[in-house]
């Protein structure tokens, strides 16, 4: 009984995707953006969907710095598709977000793996302006990644707004990252939703700061199960690497009879 089931499921999923007009894994397979950590990429079925919206939020208030770092890291990851000419990253903030928690700092982003010459900054007065600008930027086919940063839990980005952003990202074939200053209970049409926390790094042999470590928690994944991982970011190589979490085996190893946890 179980032998035919995954195949049937796969076929049905592709059928649904075809009806919804969503590109399937097969179509986008070579352009997926893998994080480079096997466990995460397995859950994401190969990597982050390129033409889609992804949400990032800090787990706690104090994790905002780490969350921004994670966004920079995702934008800094080299695009796998060869011949991709789009390299610029647009970071949009509302004035309030910039005032409350600062702006991306050029030299820091440079060192973290995202060269300053690829970074464009835009500040807008209101959250609705941010959504508008983000939609236009995603649709323009001019940018590799668009990061939109909303203060607090970003209530302006509700289901309708995120749906619009998702469609814009699909139409413009760009990666959209929605960064909220607090995780939001709102439903959203994002492809994945991440909660990022800072994790203690492994000090180097002199007792100094080690590589940046993130405690990632994937709380929503439209195409697979969720999970939690501990990863380190090597800003020289622009690569993530897994750190052991020391908990039970990752969720992907569960038998397929167990219902998948779907969030959002």
């Amino acid at each position, binding site marked *: 009984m179980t032998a035919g089931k995954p195949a049937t499921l796969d076929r049905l999923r592709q059928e649904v995707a075809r009806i919804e007009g969503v590109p399937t894994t097969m179509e986008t397979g070579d352009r997926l953006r893998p994080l480079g950590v096997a466990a995460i990429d397995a859950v994401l079925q190969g990597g982050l969907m390129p033409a889609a919206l992804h949400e990032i939020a800090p787990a706690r208030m104090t994790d905002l710095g780490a969350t921004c770092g994670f966004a920079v890291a995702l934008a800094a990851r080299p695009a796998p598709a060869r011949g991709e000419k789009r390299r610029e990253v647009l970071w949009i903030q509302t004035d309030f977000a910039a005032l409350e928690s600062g702006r*991306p700092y050029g030299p820091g982003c440079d060192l973290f793996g995202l060269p300053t*010459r690829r970074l464009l900054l835009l500040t*807008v007065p209101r959250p609705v302006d941010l959504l508008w600008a983000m939609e236009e930027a995603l649709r323009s*086919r001019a940018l590799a990644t668009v990061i939109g940063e909303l203060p607090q839990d970003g209530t302006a980005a509700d289901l309708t707004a995120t749906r619009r952003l998702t469609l814009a990202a699909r139409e413009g074939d760009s990666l959209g990252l929605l960064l909220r200053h607090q995780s939001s209970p709102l439903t959203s049409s994002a492809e994945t939703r991440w909660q990022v926390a800072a994790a203690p790094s492994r000090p180097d042999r002199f007792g100094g700061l080690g590589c940046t470590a993130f405690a990632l928690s994937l709380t929503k994944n439209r195409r697979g199960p969720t999970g939690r991982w501990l990863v380190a970011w090597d800003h020289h190589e622009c690569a993530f690497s897994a750190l052991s979490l020391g908990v039970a085996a990752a969720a992907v190893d569960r038998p397929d009879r167990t219902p998948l946890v779907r969030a959002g």
Partner: protein
Amino acid sequence: MWLRRLSTDRIERRSSAPGDAPLIVVEPVKGALRIAALNDAAAALGLTPGLPLADARARYTSLQVAQAELEADRALLVAVADWCDRYTPLVGLDAPDGLLLDITGCAHLFGGERAMAHDVMLRLARQGLQARIGIAGTVGCASAVARFSKGGIVPPGEETATLAPLPPLALRIDPEITRLLAQTGLRRIADLATRPRAPLAARYGQDLLRRLDRAFGIEDESITPRLPVPPYVAERRFPDPIGREDDVLGTVAQLAQELCVLMERRGEGARHIQTALFRADGKVYRIDAGAGQPLRDPERIRRLFLERFAVVGDACDPGFGYDMIRLSALVADRMDPVQSGLGAPDPQAALTHLIDRLGARFGRQRIARLVTQDKHIPEAAVAMVPAAHQASPSTPWEDEQDSLAPIRPTRMLATPERIDGVLNEVPDGAPVRFTWRDAFYHVAIAEGPERIAPEWWRGESNVHPRDYFRIETGDGFRAWIFRQDRLCKFKQIQDDGTEKDVVELKAHWFLHGLMA
């Protein structure tokens, strides 16, 4: 063109009272209120400008009197000049109450000079302004005809004959010189024109002769245009005014096509484009949009104005509608045609256009690139340069310190924020714990200090250096903090009970950036 009754027209336009009541405008001259302007009804009573208000009041008790407002008069004149843009791009002010229009080559568009003058007067009269128009081959002659005769058209070659019977004041010369001329019996321009030139120049100055030459067309005089004359213009007039935003935008799109054809012929593209909306009642709105690269694509021009209208649209009240829309390229640059990649959109062009549109919507300062500066102070090490400008590429930051973690934060606070409750084990060392935004942080790992001194060669010697630390707390929070000594003034109570002002250096701690 002379607006005969500018001041009184302005006041009468505003009030609903009929214009046949005598109205005078007074201004203080040498300590007495004198009549500066008056309307036709008042002129019919025999009042003249310059008469003291007291005399006028004594003669006619029922006069309406208003204070002169030079600013308001000037604003109205500028508004009328704006409106006159519909006839020619070359409009100059002839303060305080005249306008100079260079209609060379424009008159035939309005059915000839006579029809044009009629059109101007009719439209101005509808707006409640009385104008007298003189059309002539020279600026001086036209102005003299408008102000000192009944107006009208002076055929080419008849300037001398037309000017002859007019008073010398018509030459726009200093009234003081006119007075001197009158004393010697030179009351007409004809008297001047026939005199030997040298004695005139010696006695009344070179200016008089120059004015004379210019009026007669011996010397050239050009009008100083109020606005720069755009190199490319496309415009459309409507028999019935239009008011819907869609119609306006549709017209802009059509005009953009015409404009692009014009620019393509000369191999140029627009850097600065302006839409002028001429409202039927004379108000003119001007909406500007800039482009980072020379632009010659009608669709993109339309999209730019779509964004501009979304922002400023509410400020443009269409009222009874616009009867003319003009699109002009104010600044144009050379733009070579490029071979477009067959079908494949060029991301670079798309990016330029996106930046233009975001700039049109939110302001061009708001979309910026980061350019590294050769500065020590961290907040000055990066400049935000508007992305529409061609900036020199940023040099990558050198990671000069031997650390696994980046030495600069990915995020910088707008201003360094004070942190309190700092406890450090070593006097000049990193803190062990601190409070920031009402939360405790216990430092697990710290790297530093990295001393960043102020740039003494810029005269910042009284600012103390900052000692930066990169810290990580037990749960992984990373921040970039610094210590800076600052002078503190406080009162100290001494043993004998007296207070004493003490100034001493105290270490202050700040959190400057969030690291990842």
